[in-house]
């Protein structure tokens, strides 16, 4: 399998199908995620992005098909896979530090304090350990949830529209943070978003998903160097890629409208 320049396939989705009754949330989705890369999944609401990600995390089993991580099928949550939810999903009755320690409590495992401290420093949350979620801004909450996911040092990080609820500026900051964290840890990341800009800024590959049934329409390589400067991001190449992905999504809109008539 894809033993290319970017390294071996680590996470592989094979003919994933998920049915809710007669409804196909996913149908025959296949994609490979290579180690130490960032792959984004874009697509309109309801096209099965969350369903696909939860299947990758082992939270929600597929109707048929499989997800394979480093050679073994994923059938239930695995410690080497971290998950960041759509909203920060912090437990409101715990302060920030206790939220970060939550996974360790569940696993009965001793937390690596030095690593957690380093992560907190990294996302500028030092000094907020005792704060409760309702005292933190949306961006801070989402940063805390990223620290929580990274605290267990996963080899794969799954992120489900993590910055969807944030304002545009905070969102750009967060994108840079993810890039920095990736440059430091080289964690394999699967990143769901509905922002093409965000996908192109972060990813090595962009997977376009289309709805009803959820299918992989196209996969684009994004071969730009990192860190991705404003210059790269405003280049003709990025502009062209943006348009091609937009065309993919719009073609689906028109196809669906035509089918409806």
């Amino acid at each position: 399998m894809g033993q290319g320049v970017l390294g071996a396939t680590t996470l592989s989705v094979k003919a994933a199908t998920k049915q809710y009754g007669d409804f196909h949330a996913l149908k025959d989705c296949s994609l490979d995620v290579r180690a130490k890369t960032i792959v984004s999944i874009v697509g309109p609401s309801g096209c099965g992005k969350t369903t696909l990600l939860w299947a990758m995390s082992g939270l929600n089993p597929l109707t048929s098909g499989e997800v394979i991580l480093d050679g073994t099928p994923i059938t239930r949550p695995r410690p080497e896979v971290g998950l960041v939810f759509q909203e920060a999903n912090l437990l409101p009755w715990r302060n920030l530090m206790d939220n970060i320690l939550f996974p360790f409590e569940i696993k009965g495992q001793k937390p690596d304090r030095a690593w957690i401290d380093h992560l907190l420093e990294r996302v500028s949350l030092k000094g907020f350990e005792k704060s409760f979620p309702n005292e933190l801004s949306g961006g801070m909450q989402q940063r805390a949830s990223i620290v929580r996911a990274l605290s267990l040092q996963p080899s794969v990080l799954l992120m489900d529209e993590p910055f969807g609820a944030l304002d545009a500026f905070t969102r750009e900051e967060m994108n840079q943070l993810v890039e920095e964290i990736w440059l430091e840890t080289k964690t394999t990341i699967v990143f769901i978003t509905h922002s093409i800009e965000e996908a192109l800024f972060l990813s090595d590959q962009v997977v376009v998903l289309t709805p009803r049934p959820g299918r992989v329409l196209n996969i684009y390589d994004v071969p730009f160097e990192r860190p991705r400067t404003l210059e790269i991001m405003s280049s003709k190449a990025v502009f062209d890629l943006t348009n091609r992905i937009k065309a993919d999504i719009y073609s689906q809109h028109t196809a669906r409208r035509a089918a409806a008539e």
Partner: protein
Amino acid sequence: MSKDVVGGKVGKGLQSLSTFGSGTTRLEVFAIIATAVIVIGGLELALRWFEVPLYILPPPSAIVKGLIKDFPLILPHLGHTLVVLLSGFAIGAGVGMFLAALITQFPFAEKIIAPYILILVTTPMLALVPLLILRFGFGYEPRIIAVALASGPMVMINSATGFRRVDANKIALARSYGASTLQIFWKVRAPMALPMILVGLMIGAIFGLLTAVGSEMVGGGFGLGNRLTTYSSMIRMPEFFGVVLILSFLGILIYVIFFLIGKKWASWET
């Protein structure tokens, strides 16, 4: 969506519980004390001025005097009432919380049981006391059972509302770290339910107090309720109102205790 609405309601419930005593300025404290002095003092003066007989409404000074004079006699009865209230409430609240936690795991069973719980909540358990006395005599048992029956369903119905507030994402979070059903219960469901459980415990305790005093009035020779019937039959109104004063103090104490617990453990809700 609906989850937010429920959360909002609970939040508001706790908020209205906590408006009392939160963020009071010195001026407000002064106004509160001044009002109390005027009301109590005014009552005292008015009752004396119009020469209202003691057996209709004794003035505050007479009530306090009567209370102090008879306090050594009243004290053991207060103890009896507290024993009835605390043991009945402990049993009722424990069973109520347990059943709520259990039943919300099985929505189907919950639907079947719900009407019976509603009947238990809405029927005044005092009605059962004469029957319980026939069966258990004039001791502690019928009273404790009545208190448990009065407070338990209240605790249960509110706790169940709390346990039903499941947030699929928070449970998925725990599951993603391999949490067991038991861990999910103790680390996600229970803390999430806590604000509603506290509301239930408070209402349950107040209902328990009502039922304890009521059942003491129905039969048996001890307890604050018994004091009320005794003093009123002897037309010793200052002492009678003295006991009423103790009862309001107990009610306020229950409120304050749960208010403080809520402030410490459930303040994240507001």
